[in-house]
């Protein structure tokens, strides 16, 4: 194969953020499209899905395929990239009729609470209407095309990556606006005669032709940049420029003129039906009848493309009861209702359809059913239930699912204990140094972000005590004075301090003893006291998981509250013959949040009505809601829980800071100045300050200022207690950034340690250890960006949680802002500390130093 072609085919730039964006957009569209198609397969055809996904693929090809690196060497390749961005991607995306699928694909709370008000805004509606009008869209396209092809502008884009992004954004944006009136994606309706698209498209083609001709026939190089880069394949810069002009000319003209043909045929076939008329607005959005069971709180928005065909049509499979006529009335979708609907197609405003989608530009606002209503949040059954996933749901509902998950982890714990006690005393070469401190920690936080408290579900420490309880039933109750989190707060502080002070991460021997002690403690406590006292009141890992999973997207909760109301047996808490009830005393109908929930699924197995699921919930919502929670009480009255949250938040930053070079150097300097042999004293002082002194000072000050500035009626302690929960997302983001960094840079270290472990037994099953894999790989730029994004999201969620808590105290936004301001300052301080930490050179713990 020609080396240039071969190199071209292998030159795929890696842009994780573009990939994530495209995948997320495609997934949202697909979800929405499937939902809409389920309701009205006649209206939502596979062609739309193919077009939209094709548009995303074209965007990917333009920006993250070999076209991107080769565009810098060949103007003609660069032109292909621009043609894709301006002439291929936009029409394909619009042909996918993306508005409703994208809205429908968003989670309902986001759709209803966040997107709804913006899309309903008349201001936004008017702006988009103005922007997408041909008299604006065409000049914008011409300006973008000609402006960026001026030599100075083009050279600027070629020599500056930042301006290159701007150029691409301009081309894509101008293309989207230009093609909007041509494609008229549903629910858009024509605001002018289709005949007007002829001059619109012809003018676009003319300007494209003139520009192309300039490039093609010019006898001088318009962009000197291409004279400076090496010429490949014997193509001169001028020939390259001519070829670029031809690419712009021929495919460009085809793309502009092909729609004219289609429109012409349509006009000939449909006659004046294809032109807009002053029709009754609601007819354009006749809502077909739908089964009552199909409603999910948002009206099934499956309007027909043409009033005549859509009217009276039944949804396939809609043999069930039909929605009453008045409910399917057009009023929810019409901008001005029946009486004034005739004005909907007025020439000065947006089309009715467009107005409806964005809320209309009239003074009267109506709800857009697909957006749902904010008030519905929390009333509807969650759309997602992990127990309903085929295969996974069946497995989790199996009575022995938990034990099946625990056994592998139990075996791994056994391996860690053995290797820790008998293996090499170097963390990076020992499974006890690698598995717990790199893999387990990283996977736990990632699992919490993606699902929930999955580690407690598979906790190996519970397995021995569960087996022992078959023969011995504990009868004693956990002491009343210890029924709080203070003991676990103390244990957590000790653990965080010991981790750093005794370098547990580099001591397989100590790690093995910690695991052993964990098994012994869990066994002893639960053998003596009934219930899950160890999990609820002692286990530091459990407390970590409980607090961090407050912002997990899944929660074990009741599917249908009405079923619980009529339930007489309450097996979820009392237990049944086949399954114990909740040992942590969380009564499902009154359970709220993941606090104290180990995801053991006992309640799921015990419920005789199959009314408990693992449901999707808005992450973090429980932080600002404060109902009475079974087994927990009110968050706002639990000072011990708040202290746990504060310790875990500040602990996240202290734990991450402890491995940064400046802090290590500071501790060594302090030790040296004090004439100490080890940095133990300095480490102890640091942890005392970071976990006790600073939290007390900062949280106390924020509570005092909040109390004073907003005139809150609560005491400072109550204010501190309530607002401390708002810090949890920020703390979690720091844990996530820290642990995912270690995991993603050192995940391969498990390979040589496993090889060594087996080699020690004389097994050559995995070969000899490849110690080069135990070296930490250099952190990619995207990893640093990912860490910052985690912190950004944590900050935003913390700020929002604080604001919502403040609103629950004061109700008035102005007073709420005053109340939350000190907490926001504290959050920004922590955020700044987190940013500083991720910028520092890190000790690559658990890995071998890179040689050479």
């Amino acid at each position, binding site marked *: 194969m020609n*080396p*240039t072609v*071969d*190199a*071209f085919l*292998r*030159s795929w*730039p*890696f842009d994780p953020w573009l990939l994530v964006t495209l995948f997320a957009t495609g997934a949202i569209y697909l979800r929405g499209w499937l939902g809409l198609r389920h309701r009205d397969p006649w209206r939502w055809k596979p062609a739309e899905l193919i077009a939209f996904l094709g548009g995303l693929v074209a965007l990917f090809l333009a920006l993250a395929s070999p076209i991107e*690196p*080769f565009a*810098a*060497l060949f103007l003609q390749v660069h032109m292909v990239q621009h043609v894709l961005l301006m002439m291929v991607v936009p029409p394909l995306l619009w042909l996918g009729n993306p508005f409703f699928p994208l809205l429908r694909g968003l989670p309902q709370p986001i759709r209803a609470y*966040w997107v709804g*008000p*913006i899309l*309903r*805004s008349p201001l936004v509606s008017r702006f988009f209407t103005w922007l997408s009008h041909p008299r604006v869209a065409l000049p914008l396209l011409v300006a973008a095309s000609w402006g960026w092809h001026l030599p100075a502008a083009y050279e600027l884009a*070629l*020599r*500056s*990556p930042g301006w290159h992004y701007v150029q691409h954004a301009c081309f894509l944006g101008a293309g989207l606006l230009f093609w909007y009136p041509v494609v008229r994606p549903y629910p858009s309706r024509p605001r002018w005669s289709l005949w007007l698209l002829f001059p619109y498209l012809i003018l676009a083609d003319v300007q494209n032709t003139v520009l192309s001709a300039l490039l093609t026939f010019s006898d001088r190089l318009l962009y000197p*940049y291409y004279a*400076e*880069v*090496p*010429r*490949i*394949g*014997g193509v001169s810069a001028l020939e390259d420029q001519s070829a670029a002009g031809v690419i712009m000319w021929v495919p460009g003209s085809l793309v502009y003129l092909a729609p004219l043909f289609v429109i012409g045929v349509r006009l000939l076939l449909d006659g004046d039906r294809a032109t807009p008329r002053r029709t009754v607005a609601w007819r354009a959005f006749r809502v077909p009848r739908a089964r009552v069971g199909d409603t999910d709180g948002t009206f099934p928005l499956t309007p027909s493309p043409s009033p005549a065909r859509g009217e009276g049509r039944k949804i396939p499979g809609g043999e069930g009861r039909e929605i009453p006529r008045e409910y399917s009335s057009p*009023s*929810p979708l019409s901008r001005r209702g029946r009486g004034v609907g005739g004005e909907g197609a007025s020439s000065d405003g947006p089309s009715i359809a467009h107005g409806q989608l964005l809320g209309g530009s009239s*003074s*009267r*606002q*109506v*709800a857009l059913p697909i957006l749902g*209503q904010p*008030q519905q949040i929390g009333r509807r059954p969650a759309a997602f239930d992990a127990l309903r996933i085929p295969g996974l749901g069946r497995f989790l509902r199996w009575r022995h699912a938990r034990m099946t998950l625990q056994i592998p982890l139990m075996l791994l714990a056994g391996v860690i204990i053995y290797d820790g006690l008998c293996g090499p005393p170097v963390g990076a070469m020992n499974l006890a140094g690698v598995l717990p401190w790199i893999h387990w920690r990283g996977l736990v936080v990632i699992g919490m972000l993606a699902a929930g408290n999955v580690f407690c579900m598979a906790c190996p420490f519970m397995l021995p005590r569960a087996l022992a309880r078959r023969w011995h039933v504990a009868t004693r109750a956990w002491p009343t004075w210890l029924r709080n989190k203070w003991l676990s707060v103390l244990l957590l502080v000790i653990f965080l301090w010991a981790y750093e002070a005794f370098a547990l991460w580099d001591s397989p021997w100590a790690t093995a003893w910690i695991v052993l002690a964990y098994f012994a403690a869990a066994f002893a406590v639960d053998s003596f006291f009934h219930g899950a006292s160890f999990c609820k009141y002692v286990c530091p890992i459990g407390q970590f998981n409980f607090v961090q999973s407050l912002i997990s997207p899944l929660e074990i909760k009741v599917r249908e509250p009405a079923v619980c109301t009529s339930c007489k047996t309450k097996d979820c808490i009392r237990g049944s013959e086949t399954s114990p009830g909740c040992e942590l005393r969380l009564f499902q109908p009154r359970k709220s949040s993941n606090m104290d929930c180990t995801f053991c699924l006992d309640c799921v197995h015990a419920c005789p009505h199959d009314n408990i699921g693992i449901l999707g919930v808005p992450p973090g919502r429980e932080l600002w809601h404060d109902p009475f929670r079974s087994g927990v009480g009110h968050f706002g009255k639990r000072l011990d829980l708040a202290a746990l949250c504060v310790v875990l938040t500040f602990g996240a930053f202290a734990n991450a800071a402890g491995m940064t070079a400046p802090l290590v150097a500071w501790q060594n300097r302090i030790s040296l100045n004090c004439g100490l042999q080890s940095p133990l004293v300095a480490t102890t002082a640091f942890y005392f300050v970071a976990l006790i002194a600073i939290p007390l000072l900062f949280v106390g000050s924020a509570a005092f200022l909040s109390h004073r500035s907003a005139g809150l009626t609560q005491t400072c302690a109550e204010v501190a207690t309530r607002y401390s929960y708002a810090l949890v997302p920020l703390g979690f983001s720091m844990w996530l950034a820290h642990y995912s960094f270690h995991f993603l840079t050192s995940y391969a270290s498990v390979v040589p340690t496993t090889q060594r472990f087996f080699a020690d037994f004389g097994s050559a099953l995995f070969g000899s250890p490849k110690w080069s894999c135990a070296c930490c790989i250099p952190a990619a730029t995207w990893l*640093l*960006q990912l860490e*910052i*994004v985690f912190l*950004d999201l944590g*900050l*935003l969620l913390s*700020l*929002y949680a604080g604001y919502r808590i403040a609103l629950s105290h004061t109700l008035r*936004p102005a007073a709420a802002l005053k109340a939350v301001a000190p907490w926001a300052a504290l959050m920004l301080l922590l955020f700044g500390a987190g*940013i500083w930490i991720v*910028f520092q050179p890190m000790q690559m713990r658990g890995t071998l130093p890179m040689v050479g």
Partner: protein
Amino acid sequence: MSIARADGGTVRYSGRCGDRLITVFTDPTPPRSGVVDVSVLVQEGDSGKPRPEIPVIVEAQRVDQPQKQIRAPATTEAATNKLLRAAQLDLAAGRWHVDIVVEGSGQVSPPEFDLDVAEGLPPWIQMGFWIGWPLAAIGLFVVHQFLVSQRPQVDSLATSRKTLGRPNACSQSGVPANKI
């Protein structure tokens, strides 16, 4: 010196080396202390045919401190554009002399050039976009809250209009106007 920017960065050297054409790119532009990408394109001198399989080594020597030397092989794996071979050098601020050793170039003097490496930008500037985008989100939230705060007024207006036409219509149905 050319300041054209290509896939590998800015063209730093372009010329004939024996029977080969060598083009060297550096990235970022301007070079700043930290990791500097040096990409090399080797072509046949006569035909211009790319020869990405030819091994290349990049050597950098600090001009004012000759004892500071860095040597790294340039590989196609490290290059995005597989026509090129790239090496990542961790360079401190200052002037560096860079030599490109192309295998098989014989006695011909290898491509060389001086590279002025500037002080690195503070990381919070380099990552300014990633740190700062929450400000945009907060701004959007303010707009959102403003729009939300406007809704009750609009709804009450709608309700009053509707009530004028149909007395007690809303109260009878028990459905707020914005939930029709």
